[in-house]
């Protein structure tokens, strides 16, 4: 009788190191006080603003349409979050340089996997949290205010546009942290890049996609009045910049001492 060959157990799973770093970093990010402060502030501010508008409508009869309310919430969450997102991401790699990185990078993990694990964990934490808060705010404004002017496609496009901006900020934070040796320096550099980028974009022609103009147009976008080409240019531009920053950070990190 022919013997059945035992199932062969793989000795190494190639993507397990990446997954280990992703899970560990996501867990530590969600437990950090900066993240908790960000969630508390964003959620509290959104809830408070919604209740204030609802109260004004119920008591005084002052009605602000849901797209305007939602636009204010998204804009202020985005602008208010940027500082905390930068602080949350700009120390991702540089704060672990030295002995802690020794303990991780001396194992069977490549620099590429380590960088990508960290980047994706921070992206998941920031974008996932923002998505949850934004969807809850949208649902709240739809139920509490005059939500009939809100459109589903407009809401999706608005969230996509804001999330692409946050993704760019997060990627810049992680990439700069892979290049710098100090968290403070990393935060300063990310701020300088964002300010300079924002200033340059504000000087561009009006039809040029910029985060600032997109945030101003959010009420129309939420109503469903948007130019898909402009939005896709903004999203693809943000993603291209993110990709460029991530590639630069990853290549630099893979060639540097830890």
């Amino acid at each position, binding site marked *: 009788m022919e013997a059945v060959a035992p199932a062969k157990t793989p000795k190494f799973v190639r993507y397990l190191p990446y997954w280990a770093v992703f899970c560990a970093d996501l867990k530590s990010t969600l437990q950090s006080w900066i993240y908790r402060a960000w969630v508390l502030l964003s959620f509290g501010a959104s809830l408070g603003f919604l209740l204030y508008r609802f109260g004004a409508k119920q008591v005084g009869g002052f009605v602000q349409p849901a797209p305007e309310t939602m636009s204010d919430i998204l804009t202020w969450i985005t602008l208010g979050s940027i500082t905390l997102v930068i602080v949350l991401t700009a120390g991702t790699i540089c704060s672990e340089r030295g002995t802690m990185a020794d303990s991780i990078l001396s*194992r069977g*993990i490549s620099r590429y996997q380590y960088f990508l694990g960290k980047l994706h964990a921070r992206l998941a934490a920031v974008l996932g949290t923002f998505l949850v808060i934004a969807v809850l705010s949208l649902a709240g404004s739809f139920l509490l205010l005059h939500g009939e002017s809100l459109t589903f496609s407009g809401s999706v496009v608005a969230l996509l546009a804001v999330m692409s901006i946050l993704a760019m900020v997060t990627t810049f934070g992680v990439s700069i942290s892979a290049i710098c040796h100090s968290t403070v320096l990393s935060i300063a550099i990310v701020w300088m890049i964002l300010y300079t980028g924002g200033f340059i974009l504000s000087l561009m022609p009006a039809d040029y996609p910029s985060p600032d103009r997109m945030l101003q147009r959010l009420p129309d976008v939420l109503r469903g009045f948007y130019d898909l080409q402009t939005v896709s240019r903004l999203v693809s531009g943000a993603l291209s910049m993110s990709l460029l920053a991530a590639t630069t950070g990853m290549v630099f990190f893979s060639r540097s001492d830890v």
Partner: protein
Amino acid sequence: MAANAGGLVVETYKLTKIYQNRQIALNDVTLRIEPGCVLGLLGHNGAGKTTLLRLILGLHRPTAGWVKAFDKTMCPNAAQLRCKIGYIPTNPQFPRGMTPISYLDYIARLFGLPAEIRKPRLASLIRAVDLLNVSGDPIDGFSNGMTARLAVATSLINEPELLIWDEPTHGLDPEARRSMLELIKTLAKEKTLIVSSHNLGDIDEVCNHAAVLSRGHLIYFGSLQDLKGRMRRNHYELDLESDQKAIGKAVQAIKGMSEFKLVNLRSRRLELRLADDANSSSSLASVFMALADNKVNVVNIRSVGQQTEAAFLDLVEKEEAKGFARAYQQPESA
């Protein structure tokens, strides 16, 4: 033995590391470590020991020269090569809030070990390093000894062929230090080890080869026996037993011998240092004759100073005295 039988475990060639054009941490280091070698890495603080280990692990990139591990060039992305290496840094750091189980599981996943391999292995290792009682406690509250044992388990989780331990006995109490040395001796039977330590007694006990670094330069690489053989055994202490008068007379007789450049009696302990050209056997025979003539018993005799330590200090001293001449000399090797 290792799968790499026949090939070299580690090979470096003209390895040089200069930090930001400011500090020369390592200069022109060439060494070849064969399977089964237990190499003691010696050197003062700042001699370049940790830099050399980090270069071997691919944590640092060489400024010049190269490092090969298992016949392949080591670089920061050579994850497959590091899967064959177990490393303990000088002061192992552990992420906050992790327990020994979660930490070992994390490290095992960093080596790409699937659950059916890593789970049983981490359980046996926790049992082996005697951390079973605290396996669910946060590592933050661990003592130095417990941390060291966890670091040992971490370095063995991937069943490595090469172990690189940077000052493994640093900060350990005598009992923990003894256990660590015994463990190194056990592991040395089937693995290649590189052990860096300030404690020359430890190196002397567990290593069969030595590499001595001085200010980033490799001044000796070879067997420990050869390193010790370089030193003359010319310093002895004898514990004597008799009345003080008899001992005094014997010491006077010994002081008259030209073979000794130092004869010193403190209480009943006689310290002797031989002249450079003296023959130790005949000189000590004369001493015993003098003691016997005065009816003085010898309770104990020992060679003073560890030979490895003396050899190490002698090497470093000679290296520093070379001056410009060192630029034209190759490191000594067995």
